[in-house]
């Protein structure tokens, strides 16, 4: 395409079919974060994905 660069495809639509295994991190292990940014979590089905979220303003 000459006018548009797609940097991400229809990932959400595709993931409806195979998602939901429930093995990924509980996205907001800390409700004290002021936002529950679920989209920055990793899918456990992607190899080597292990990422953890920071917690709290303790």
């Amino acid at each position, binding site marked *: *395409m*000459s*006018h*548009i*660069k*797609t*940097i*991400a*495809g*229809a*990932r*959400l*639509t595709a*993931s*409806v079919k*195979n*998602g*939901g295994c*429930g*093995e*990924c*991190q*509980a*996205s*907001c*292990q*800390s*409700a*004290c*974060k*002021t*936002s*529950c*940014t*679920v*989209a*920055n*979590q*990793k*899918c*456990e089905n*992607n190899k*080597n*994905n*292990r*990422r*953890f*979220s*920071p*917690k*709290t*303003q*303790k």
Partner: protein
Amino acid sequence: MRGRLFLLSLEGFKMLHKYELNGYRIAIDTNSGAVHVLDKLAYDLLDYASFEMGKEAPEEAYQLGSREDVDVCWSELGELRDRGELFCPDDKRLSSFRTASAPVKSMCLLIAHDCNMKCEYCFADEGCYGGKRNWLPEETAKAAIDFLIEKSGSRHNLEVDFFGGEPLLNFGVVKSTVEYARSLEQKHNKNFRFTITTNGVLLDDDNIEFINREMSNVVMSLDGRKEIHDRIRTKKDGSGTYDAIVPKFQKLVSQRENNAEGKRDYYLRGTFTRHNLDFSNDVFHIAGLGVDQISVEPVVAPDSAPYSLRKEDLPRIFTEYETLAKRIVEDRKNGGYFNFFHFMIDLEGGPCAIKRVKGCGCGNEYVAVAANGDIYPCHQFVGVAGKKMGNVLDGSFDQGMKSEFAKADIFAKTDCQNCWAKFYCSGGCNANNFLYRGDILKPYEISCEMERKRVECAVMIKAALADEEKENDGGKDAV
């Protein structure tokens, strides 16, 4: 920067958000998750496009450019629509995952309702959570692990956060809990992932070695510049802690091994308040300490608190996020690197749509256990009247409350339905919603505004780095 949201209502919502930031024109297609970077013609032409767009652009659209250019661009937009990457209708299949109760797989373990610091903004009342100072006994901790294993069903990966107050005050129980959980992994086919959050005061060589060996992640509290940190994060006598803890944090990080991605899992985690609305300087300061995993997050506080964030602070906060995002782009293009937690986004390999519907999982997949064994939906609910779910010592667990929290998904939050960012934040923090609006289903608008800005910045960073790849690739694309 300006943004625009399209909403059409035929065959379900087709939501598209377009905005300009740092010279990039970006369109986010909410329901498909597709993200596009556009040139000016395509960006402007979007105003004339829709799910129902025909093969030819409307006559008034030809004012935007030459007939040939508009035709080509219109055709490209139509192609994206046909591929389901533009004006994508909402997926009705997602609603079938609604209200699904799930096994409990994550636990926040309050190791000590006690703290050796006295931070002005602490939601946990200096670790006491509105009650008495109390340390988690070893037997209660073991009962909590037993509870988690029992309630986790077939889930393999279990997460336990050692939290407080300050968990290092009761570090012996941290160690014995890890040892106990590890001893049960094989028997129950579980994989425990531990994390710990600490203020750093009691870090020493021994606990650093243990933490780096056993904890999948460690969160170290540091607000940034010394004067900012020491203003709020003080010892009981009011003196600051910056000078004492920073060398310990640096030591811990330097001794931490890389993960499979070649990076270390840890965070230097700060809080910004009304006192430091120029918080990008705190992020840069932390990055200058030789660490590269950073999170500086907005304070959670009632409006009455002098340091709370208010609606009139938002323009400044937005500017700070933009400054931060531009700096990250600049740094990475120059070979530098630091990661800002709230700008982390994986557009292609991120969480599945079902995860995004369910949201944080508190009270359903995730619970907090207090030092007396009481169970709460998450640690921010600890001590809140009417939110106790049970107790790990007597085995009680309120399935009705669990179901109530399980239902708190993105579809149940009516304010979120027309928000283009709903699949990025998944309805926000239920505890925040409860704190600010008295209802876990009603998101707090200031938090929403900040979240939308962060997503815009995060996507812009991706666009800019994709642009960099294109340049390195010989400029294959025109955009």
